[in-house]
C-alpha cells in the first residue's frame, strides 16, 4: 500500500470512528423522526445528483446493503407478529419504512425524487402484502393468507417493469421479476415455517433470501451504472470491489444474526438453537474467507477469536435475562479481550496496514452497539433497538470497506506473478 493510500485509508478510519462515537453519544430513544442514514445519502445535501459512473462502487455497495437489510427487517416484522409482540412489530415496521425511504432517496439521487417516489409506492405495497401475510398466518386465517398472496402476485412484475424503464433496460425486467418472485415466496415460506415452529428451516430460508436480495442490489446497480449493453466502469466489479462486497455481506449478516440470537437468548425463545446455528454458519464462512485470505492457520485463529466474540455476546444476553450482574461483567470483560485479540490479529495479518488501536475502536463500537440494542430490548425500548440495529448494520459495511482497503494490497503483493509456460511444441499456434 502506498503512503498516499495508507493516509486515505486511515483518514476513512478516523472519520468513521469519530462519527460513530458521535452516534453512540447521542443515543436518545426517540420514537419520532429517524436520523439520516450515512453513505451516499448522508452526503447528498438532499438535492445534489449522483453520477453513477463516478460513484459506481458506492452505489453498488449501498444498494446491496439496503436490499439485504430489507430481508432482515422484514423477517423481524413477520417473526414478532407471529410471536404476538405488537410493540416490537410496530418499531420493526418503522425500520422497514426507513429502509424503503433510504432506497427511494438513493434512487432519487440518480433519477430525481419524482421518479423515485414511484419505487417507494411499489416497494411498500409489496411490504404491506408480506406484513398482511404474516398477520394472516398469526391468526390461522387461510382466506386472508390467500388474499395476501393474491395482493403480492403482480408485485414482482410491476417493480421489475418500473426498474427496467427507470434504467432504460439496464436492469432487465425478467431478471428482476424472477429475483423478486423468489424473494416473496421465500418470505412466505419463512413465515409458514416459523409459524409451525420449524425454526431451522425458517432461518435457513432467511439466509438464502438475504444472499439473493444482496445480489439483487448488485444487479440493479449494474443496470443503473451500465445501462443496456454498455460497459461498466472498471472499478464497479474489480477484484477489490468484489472483496469489499463479500466482506460486507458476511459482516452485515453477522450483525443481524447476532442480534436475533441475542434476542432469542434474552427471551428464552425456542428458536434460539436455530438462530445460533445460523450465527455459527456465518462464523464458518467468515473464518473460511480469512483462511483463504491469510492461510488456513490464520483462518483457524480467526475462527477461535471470533468464536470468543460470539460466546461473549450470548453470555451477556443470558446474564441480562437472569439479571446476573457478575455474568454481565464477565461477558463484557470477554468482549474487551476479544477486541484486543482481533485487532492484533488483523494488524499483524495486514502487515501493519491496519493499525491495532484504530481497529480496536471499530470493534469496540460494534460490541457496544450489540450490547446497547440488547439492553434496550430488555427494557422494552424497541424504537432504540431498531435504530441501533439499523445503524450498526450500516457500520459493518464501513468496516468491510476499511478491511478490504488494507487486505487488498496485502494480498496483491503475494499473488503469483505473470503468465504460465504451458506449451511446448507450437501445434496450437494461432489456431
Amino acid at each position, binding site marked *: 500500500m502506498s503512503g498516499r493510500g495508507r493516509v486515505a485509508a486511515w483518514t476513512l478510519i478516523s472519520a468513521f470512528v469519530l462519527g460513530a462515537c458521535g452516534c453512540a453519544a447521542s443515543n436518545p430513544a426517540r420514537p419520532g423522526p429517524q436520523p439520516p442514514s450515512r453513505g451516499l445519502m448522508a452526503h447528498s445535501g438532499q438535492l445534489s445528483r449522483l453520477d453513477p459512473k463516478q460513484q459506481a462502487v458506492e452505489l453498488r455497495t449501498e444498494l446491496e446493503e439496503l436490499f439485504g437489510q430489507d430481508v432482515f427487517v422484514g423477517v423481524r416484522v413477520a417473526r414478532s407478529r407471529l410471536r404476538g409482540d405488537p410493540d416490537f412489530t*410496530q418499531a420493526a415496521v418503522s425500520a422497514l419504512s426507513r429502509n424503503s425511504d433510504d432506497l427511494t432517496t438513493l434512487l432519487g439521487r440518480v433519477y430525481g425524487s419524482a421518479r423515485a417516489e414511484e419505487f417507494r409506492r411499489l416497494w411498500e405495497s409489496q411490504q*404491506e402484502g408480506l406484513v398482511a401475510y404474516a398477520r394472516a398466518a398469526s391468526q390461522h386465517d387461510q382466506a386472508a393468507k390467500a388474499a395476501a398472496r393474491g395482493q403480492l402476485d403482480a408485485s414482482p412484475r410491476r417493480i421489475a417493469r418500473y426498474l427496467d424503464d427507470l434504467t432504460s433496460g439496464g436492469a432487465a425486467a425478467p431478471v428482476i421479476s424472477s429475483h423478486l418472485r423468489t424473494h416473496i415466496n421465500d418470505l412466505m415460506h419463512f413465515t409458514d415455517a416459523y409459524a409451525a415452529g420449524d425454526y431451522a428451516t425458517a432461518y435457513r430460508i432467511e439466509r438464502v433470501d438475504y444472499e439473493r436480495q444482496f445480489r439483487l442490489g448488485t444487479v440493479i446497480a449494474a443496470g443503473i451504472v451500465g445501462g443496456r449493453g454498455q460497459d461498466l466502469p472498471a472499478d464497479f466489479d474489480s477484484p477489490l470491489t468484489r472483496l469489499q462486497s463479500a466482506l460486507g455481506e458476511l459482516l452485515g449478516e453477522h450483525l443481524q444474526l447476532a442480534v436475533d440470537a441475542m434476542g432469542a437468548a434474552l427471551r428464552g425463545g425456542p428458536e434460539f438453537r436455530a438462530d445460533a446455528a445460523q450465527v455459527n454458519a456465518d462464523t464458518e464462512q467468515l473464518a473460511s474467507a480469512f483462511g483463504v485470505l491469510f492461510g488456513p492457520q490464520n483462518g483457524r485463529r480467526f475462527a477461535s477469536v471470533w468464536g470468543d466474540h460470539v460466546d461473549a455476546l450470548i453470555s451477556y*444476553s443470558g446474564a441480562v435475562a437472569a439479571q446476573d450482574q457478575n455474568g454481565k461483567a464477565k461477558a463484557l470483560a470477554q468482549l474487551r479481550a476479544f477486541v484486543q485479540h482481533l485487532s492484533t490479529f488483523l494488524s499483524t495479518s495486514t502487515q501493519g496496514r491496519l493499525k491495532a488501536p484504530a481497529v480496536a475502536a471499530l470493534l469496540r463500537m460494534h460490541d457496544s452497539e450489540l450490547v446497547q440494542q440488547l439492553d434496550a430490548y430488555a427494557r422494552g425500548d424497541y424504537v432504540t433497538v431498531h435504530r441501533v440495529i439499523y445503524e450498526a448494520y450500516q457500520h459493518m459495511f464501513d468496516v468491510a470497506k476499511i478491511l478490504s482497503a488494507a487486505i487488498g494490497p496485502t494480498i496483491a503483493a503475494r499473488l503469483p506473478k505473470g*503468465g*504460465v*509456460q504451458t506449451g511446448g511444441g507450437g501445434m*496450437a499456434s494461432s489456431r
Partner: protein
Amino acid sequence: MNRWPAIPLAAMSLAGLLLLVPGCGGPGRGPAAAPSRGGPATAAEPREPPDVAGFRSVRTYDRPAPPVRLWIPAIAVSTRLVRLGRLADGSLEVPHDWNTAGWFDRGPRPGQPGPAVILGHVDSTAGPAVFFRLRELRPRDIVRVGLADGRILVFRVQRVRRYPKDEFPAKAVYFPTLNRELRLITCGGTFDYASRNYLDNIVVYATLVT
C-alpha cells in the same frame, strides 16, 4: 435529515396496516413490558427453554478436500490433478507431465471462497497435450472437479479470455474475491520458435454451481 414528514401515503398505509392488528399499540405508549417469552403463538407444543448457558460458538470451518481429478466433457478432458507450487520468479509451476493437469496448492482449493487455479499444457514437443482444446470452451459449459474425499464439484464456464503473457492480469485471475470460482489456464496465441514459448495465455473463468 428529518425524513418522516416526507413519508408518503404508501408508507403511512404500511403503518396503518399495523394499527389494524389487534393489540398493536401506537408509538405514544410508554415503555413496553418485558419482552414476551416463547415462540410464535401458533407453535403447536410447548418447548423446553433453550440452553443458552450451554452455547459455544463454532471455532473451526470446513475446508474442502484437495482436488484430485478434472473432467471437462465438452472437450473430452479427463485427467488426474497434481499439486503445483511457485517458481523462483513468482510465476506458477507447471505440470511436468504434458497430459496431466495440476492445481496451485497455495491458493484456494476448488469449492473454497476465491479462485482455485488449475493449469495444463496445450501441447508438447510431440503433439497435443491435456488442455489442447481448452480455448474451445464456451459460456455455460460444465467443468467437474473430483475431490480426495469423493465429492464432485460442478462449475459452469462464464467466459474465456486470451491475454499476452507480458500483460497478464494477475489480479483479475488470482485475487481472492471470496466468490467460489475456478480458473483453467493454458497457453495460446502465437508460438515463438526462438524462445519455444507461446506468447499468450488462455484463461477460462468458471463459477461453482454445486
